[in-house]
């Protein structure tokens, strides 16, 4: 009798587990694929409502219908070609700015992690750099670096630099006191401690910083292009031009392209982070 109930119990639980598994997979499909599509639909709907109901025909250049943006901005070959060559240039500015930010930011954080007095003297200036109104720097930057690529990259660095410094520094200081004791007990030098303890411990938050800064670098590149319009046009240059020409369709095509670039770099760094530290660091995994 006892055996019977046990057998019944076992055979009854297995399908329940399988069902739960199935329900879980279905739920994750809904939340990962279906919901974003629904949100996309809602946003497109709001866009249509704004252009169609709020704006009249004369005002519609500010926010043309989505299908007009696609038709004029992306399906017209010569406009599309312009946007793509601007995208290429914006990518150049974004990635060189981001690379410089990462190199300088990590170097600065490493320096600050070595002594409290270095941190105390440098960190406030990183904060100042972050809060400085970029527009006010236009004359100053153009005087030294001209109105073209170099100045755009510098604007990108100013905007993308801070999250890398703050996240890397936080990460370098995040190793537990107990693990520091291990290195102290065995008389590990600064470099050993840095290389074998602090840097690996810092990786997860460094990647958080990279990801935040990657998004900011796109914004920085566009702001830079907005301010420094000499030379080849980037997406920001285009936006500024189309704004003054009242060409809403091409303006919004460039805006959408820029945000696609932002999303791409953000997703890329998320992927890279999971590849590098995902095996041992569980943060945003359920």
């Amino acid at each position, binding site marked *: 009798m006892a055996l019977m109930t046990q057998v019944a119990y076992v055979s009854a639980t297995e399908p329940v587990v399988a069902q739960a598994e199935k329900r879980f997979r279905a739920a994750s499909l809904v939340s990962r694929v279906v919901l974003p599509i629904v949100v996309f639909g809602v946003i497109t709907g709001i866009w249509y409502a704004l252009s169609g109901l709020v704006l009249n025909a004369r005002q519609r250049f500010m926010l043309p219908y989505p299908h007009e943006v696609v038709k004029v901005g992306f399906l017209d070959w010569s406009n599309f070609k312009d946007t793509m060559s601007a995208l290429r240039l914006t990518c150049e500015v974004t990635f060189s700015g981001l690379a410089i930010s990462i190199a300088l930011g990590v170097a600065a954080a490493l320096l600050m992690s070595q002594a409290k007095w270095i941190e105390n003297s440098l960190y406030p200036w990183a904060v100042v750099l972050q809060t400085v109104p970029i527009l006010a720097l236009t004359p100053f930057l153009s005087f030294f670096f001209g109105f073209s690529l170099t100045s755009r990259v510098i604007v990108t660095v100013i905007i993308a630099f801070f999250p890398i410094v703050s996240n890397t520094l936080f990460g370098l200081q995040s190793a537990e006191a*107990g693990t520091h004791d*291990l290195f102290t*007990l*065995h008389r590990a030098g600064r470099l050993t401690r840095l290389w074998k*303890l602090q840097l690996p411990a810092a990786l997860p938050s460094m990647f958080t910083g990279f990801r935040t800064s990657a998004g900011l670098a796109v914004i920085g590149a566009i702001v830079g292009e907005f301010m420094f319009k000499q030379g080849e046009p980037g997406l920001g240059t285009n936006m500024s031009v189309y704004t003054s020409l009242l060409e809403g369709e091409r303006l919004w095509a460039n805006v959408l392209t820029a945000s696609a670039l932002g999303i791409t770099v953000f997703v890329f760094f998320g992927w890279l982070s999971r590849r590098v530290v995902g095996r*041992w660091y569980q943060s945003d995994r359920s």
Partner: protein
Amino acid sequence: MTLVEPQTETHAPALSFTGVSKQYRDGTVALTDADLAVAPGEFVTVVGPSGCGKSTLLRIASGLDRATTGTVAVPAHRVGYVFQDATLLPWRTVRRNVELFAELDKLSKDERQRRVAEAIELVGLTGFEKHLPHELSGGMRMRASLARSLVLDPDLFLFDEPFGALDEITRERLNDELLRMFQLRSFAALFITHSVAEAVFLSTRVVVMSGRPGRVLADIAVPFDYPRIPDLRYTAEFAALCGEVSHHLRSA
């Protein structure tokens, strides 16, 4: 007839504290006038209420902290230290974690590999070399932490409540295994715990400390021979000794 002197006094102690006091910068007095010595081959356990400076004792012995007054002598060459938490590096596999101290002490690669394999086998983690800490149970993490120190073949082992966070079954099994290692490697051990039964089961001597500021209240020899079998815990003599230690603790 010639009397043979017992061997214990012929060696210098692996660790000795004479009149050691510790006052922290905030004014807290953690230890007052502590005298304690651990001879080679001895397993000394310190029990006492929370905050009586037991951990301070180990931090001073290992050099992580300095005594305010008194003399500390640690002639032992290789000191192992097992913390309350396993303190494994989460990005390193079991094998690489066990290798850490040997790496920091700059042992050659071949030597490291040989010792790591040996230590992993000794703590019963064979087959888990490539696992990461978060994939292990609490007991297994503690085993890895033990192995990390065993690699250096210490002649003095400091244990800071290593099994305090484990369930009783795991704790008793690890106690048995620790004693097996103690016999095999014959290190001197200074062990800290809250558990009276654990103290009596493991040790050659149990030292009872008072509450803050910590002082040594009693020093009780444990007469049971090694190897000690798990069922020792259920004998009348064992219970009587536990009672004696508890009695001193209550007066602490």
